[in-house]
């Protein structure tokens, strides 16, 4: 009984993080800000949903599979986001006009392969 209540609360927290991440994806000004809002919030929200499914179902097949899905999401989603940010910078997307610092441009210099 307490399992179901806590599981539903954890799933609700995950869904709230997903919704706020998608709101940030719609509202923020340039591609790097959108990537930050979207990736962090949606990764944590999906982990919350999977952990809530584990709390609801316990140590059954469904619950354990949801539990081993959490490390996979935590490993793959930030790596993909990092590759996308690097690709966007090399592609030549400008930063938003109020951004204050761009360390990666200083590091790259004129080396096209970095």
């Amino acid at each position, binding site marked *: 009984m307490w399992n179901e209540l806590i599981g539903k609360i954890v799933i609700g927290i995950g869904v709230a993080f997903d919704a706020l991440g998608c709101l940030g994806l719609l509202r923020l000004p340039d591609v790097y800000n959108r990537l930050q809002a979207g990736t962090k919030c949606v990764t944590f929200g999906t982990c919350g949903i*999977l952990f809530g499914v584990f709390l609801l179902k316990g140590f059954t097949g*469904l619950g354990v599979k949801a539990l081993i899905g959490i490390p996979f999401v935590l490993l793959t989603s930030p790596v993909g986001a990092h590759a*996308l940010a690097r690709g966007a910078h090399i592609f030549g997307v400008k930063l938003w006009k109020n951004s204050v610092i761009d360390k990666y441009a200083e590091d790259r210099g004129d080396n096209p392969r970095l």
Partner: protein
Amino acid sequence: MNTYFLILVGCCFACLLRAALGKTVPDRMVAIDILGTLAVGMTALWAVISKKDFIIDVALAWIFLSFIGTLALAKYLAHKTLDE
């Protein structure tokens, strides 16, 4: 639980809206990447709602397919080609 699922469907439409509106190419790619991660959570939730346990396997496969797709898109962005 059905309310949670409907909220996630709304989030997917927000991602599709960004993919349709985005001014540059990386904007659309970011939207598709986030849509993939969102679909994993939706699939796990649907496995609980519909009481069919095997649907969680779809979520586990979807994580890796979304990851490989994102890496291919990022490699195309960085080098303008998929070779090497």
